[in-house]
C-alpha cells in the first residue's frame, strides 16, 4: 500500500506543466480563438516530439508504454492549461484503440504528427476538430468504425467553448468496421471509462487553476482601500473551493491507479466517483472565480470565462453527473461496502 505519486510520475507531470506554461498561455489561446481555429500546429508538433500522444501505447508499437496512473498528472495539467488540441482523447482513447484494432500504419502516422484522427462516441458524440482531421474514429454501441474524413458527413455544431469546434458526424460508405458485437461493446465501454477518468482529471486541473487565478486577482484588486482578498467572505468562498479540490484529488488518483482494468465493477464505481466530485469541484470553483472577479468575471476581458465554459462541456461528456452518481449508487447496492472494502477489486 503506497498511495504516493512516484518520482517518475511527478517528473512527467512537471515536464508537461512547464511545457504548457511556456507554450499554452491564455494569451495564445485568445489569439488562436481569434483565427477561428482550435488547434495550433506548432504546439501539436511539439507534443508529438515529446511522445505524448502515444503515451499509453506499448513500447513495441512505438509508444511510451505508460499506464493511466502515470499520465493522470499530465492530464490534470492539460486541463488547467485549457489545452485545445485533442491530446487527451488521442492519447487516452484513439491511439490505444488503433493499436488494439491493428491499424498500425495510421497509428504510426498519428504518433509521427503526420495525421490527425477525430473521435466520436455515444458519450461524447460531437467530434472536436473533425474538419481538420484525416479520419474519424467512431464508437457506436456495438460497432467501432474508422471513417476517412472525405467519406463522413460532418455538420458544425457551434458551442459555448471558443476552443472546441464540434461536428455531428455521419459515417459514409467508405467507413471501415474495426469491431462489431461483443468486441465493439467492450471497446466502447472501455473508451467511456477512460474518457470519464480523463475528463475528471482535466476538471480537477481547471478547479485548481480557477482558484489560483482568483487568489491572484483578489490580491491585486482593491476596494474600500484594501485588497478584496482581505475580505473574509471571499476567503471563505475560495477556502470552500479548495476543500472540494482536496477531496476530489485522492479519488481521482485512486481511480487512475485502478484504471488498468476498466471491466472491474469497483474500478468503474471509483471512476464515477472521480468524475462526479471533480465535476462538482470544477463547477463550484469556476462559479466562485466569476464571483471573485466581479464584472470582470462576466466579461471576456479576464480569463475566467474559459474555465466555466470548458467545465460545462467536460461535466457532461463521458457520462453526465446523474449517470455517474447513479452508477455509484448501484455499486453501493450491489457490491461489498465498509471500511475494509476501500481498495477492493474483483478477482
Amino acid at each position, binding site marked *: 500500500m503506497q498511495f504516493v505519486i512516484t518520482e517518475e510520475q511527478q517528473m512527467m507531470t512537471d515536464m508537461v506543466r512547464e511545457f504548457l506554461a511556456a507554450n499554452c498561455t491564455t494569451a495564445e489561446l485568445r489569439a488562436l480563438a481569434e483565427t477561428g481555429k482550435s488547434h495550433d500546429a506548432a504546439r501539436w508538433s511539439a507534443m508529438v516530439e515529446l511522445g505524448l500522444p502515444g503515451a499509453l501505447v506499448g513500447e513495441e508499437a512505438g509508444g511510451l508504454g505508460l499506464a493511466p496512473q502515470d499520465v493522470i498528472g499530465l492530464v490534470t495539467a492539460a486541463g488547467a492549461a485549457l489545452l485545445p488540441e485533442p491530446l487527451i482523447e488521442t492519447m487516452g482513447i484513439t491511439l490505444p484503440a488503433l493499436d488494439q484494432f491493428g491499424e498500425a500504419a495510421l497509428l504510426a502516422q498519428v504518433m509521427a504528427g503526420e495525421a490527425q484522427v477525430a473521435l466520436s462516441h455515444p458519450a461524447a458524440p460531437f467530434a472536436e476538430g473533425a474538419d481538420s482531421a484525416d479520419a474519424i474514429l467512431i464508437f457506436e454501441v456495438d460497432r467501432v468504425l474508422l471513417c476517412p474524413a472525405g467519406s463522413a458527413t460532418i455538420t458544425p455544431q457551434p458551442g459555448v467553448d471558443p476552443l472546441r469546434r464540434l461536428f455531428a458526424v455521419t459515417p459514409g460508405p467508405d467507413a471501415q468496421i474495426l469491431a462489431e458485437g461483443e468486441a465493439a461493446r467492450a471497446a466502447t465501454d472501455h473508451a467511456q471509462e477512460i474518457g470519464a477518468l480523463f475528463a475528471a482529471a482535466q476538471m480537477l486541473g481547471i478547479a485548481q487553476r480557477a482558484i489560483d487565478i482568483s487568489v491572484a486577482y483578489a490580491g491585486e484588486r482593491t476596494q474600500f482601500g484594501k485588497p478584496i482578498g482581505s475580505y473574509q467572505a471571499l476567503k*471563505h468562498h475560495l477556502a470552500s473551493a479548495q*476543500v472540494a479540490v482536496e477531496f476530489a484529488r485522492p479519488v481521482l488518483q485512486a481511480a487512475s491507479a485502478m484504471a488498468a482494468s476498466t471491466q472491474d465493477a469497483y474500478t468503474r464505481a471509483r471512476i464515477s466517483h472521480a468524475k462526479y466530485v471533480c465535476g462538482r469541484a470544477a463547477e463550484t470553483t469556476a462559479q466562485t472565480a466569476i464571483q471573485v472577479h466581479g464584472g470582470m468575471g462576466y466579461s471576456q476581458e479576464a480569463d475566467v470565462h474559459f474555465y466555466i465554459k470548458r467545465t460545462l462541456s467536460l461535466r457532461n461528456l463521458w457520462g453526465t453527473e446523474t449517470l455517474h452518481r447513479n452508477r455509484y*449508487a448501484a455499486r453501493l447496492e450491489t457490491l461489498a461496502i465498509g471500511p475494509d472494502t476501500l481498495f477492493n477489486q474483483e478477482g
Partner: protein
Amino acid sequence: MELTYTDAQRAFRDEVRSWMRDNVPATPLPSFDASREGFEAHRAWEAKLNEGRWGMVTWPDAYGGRGLDLIRWLIFEEEYYGARAPLRVNQNGIFLLGPTLMEFGTEQQKARYLPRMATGEEIWAQAWSEPQAGSDLAAVRAKARREGDEYVLSGHKIWSSRAVYADMAFGLFRTDPDSERHHGLSLILFPLDAPGVTRQAIHQINGEHGFAELFLDEVRVPAENILGAEGQGWKICMATAGFERGLMLRSPARYQVAVRALVALAQSRGDDLDPVLRARVAEAAMGAEAYALSIYSTASRLMAGGRIGAEASTNKIFWSELDIALHRTALDILGDRAELHPGASAAPDAGNWLDGYLFSLAGPIYAGTNEIQRNIIAERMLGMPRK
C-alpha cells in the same frame, strides 16, 4: 501508486478482526458522558484493549504500543469501527496529548504518562478554552505562577470534554503575567482531583454532561508538569491541533461504518426510497470514501517523510460537514420517526441516528470552528492577505 495491501497487512487485519470478535462487548456500553458507571465501563474496556496491546498501535513497545506504521493504524481503526467497538473514552489522551508528548515531552514524562494512558489508568481532558478565549485561544487568561519547584494554577476553563469524570488534564496557562496573545503561554499537566479544582458539569445538547467547566483556585503542581519550555505553549498547542485536525481525531472508518448503516437503512425502504434520498445516500458514501482515500494518501506521505501543514484544516471541514450530511440523510429517510429516541416503540429501526445527528452539529465547532479553519486555508494555504 500501489493500492493493494501486502500479505503482512492482510494478516494484521485478520489478527485485529479475530481479537475484536472475541473481545468486543456484545451489548453496547452505557455512554461515558452520562454516568460514572458508563465512564468506568469504558475505562475497563481500555484496560482490556491494552491487554491485547491494542491501546495505541503506533506507539513504541516500551509505552504499551506495537511500533506500527500509519497504514497499520488505519487498518486497526477499520477493524475497530467495523466491530462496533466502544468509543475511546481516552481519545483526548491517546490521539492528542500522546503524539504531543512523543514530540515535545522529556523521557521521564513519556515514561510517566504514556503507559498509564495506554492502560486507561489515567484518562485525560483538554483544558484550553476559556469563556473569553474560544476561537481566539490566544486570549487565554488562566495563570500559572512559578513558586519554588511548583506551579500555582488559577483561572476558569470551559468546554473541557470528559472532564466531569477524567483524572488528568492538559491545560494552557499564561506563565508570563506581562505577556500578550500567544507569547508567554505554557502547557501544564494537572490532576483534576487536586485541591483547588472545582468541576461543574455542563449539559450538552443531548442532555448528557459531556463537558465541564473547571474553576482553578491556587492549584499546586510540580514544576516538572510543564510540557516543553516555559513560553512554548502556543507552538505546542498548534502542533497538537495539527494532529487533531489532520489525522488522528476522526478516523475515516467511523464514517465508512456509518455509511454502511445508512445504506442498510435506505435499502430497508426498498423501492419506496425517493430518488433524491438515494442520491444523497450516494453523496454521503462518496464523502466517506473520499475522506478515507485522502487519509490513506496523507499517511503514505507522512511515512515517506512528509509533514502535515495547513491542509489539515481542509480535513476538519470535510469530515464535519460530511458527518452532518450523512446523519441528515438518515433522519430524512426516517421521516416522522426521526425525532424519536431509540427506545420509542414506534421507532424500532431508528437506531442512534438522532444522537449521531445531534453530535454531528458539534463538529463544525470543536477543534477550531470551521470559520477559523477557512481563515487558515485562505491565509496559509492560499496566501490571501490577512488585512
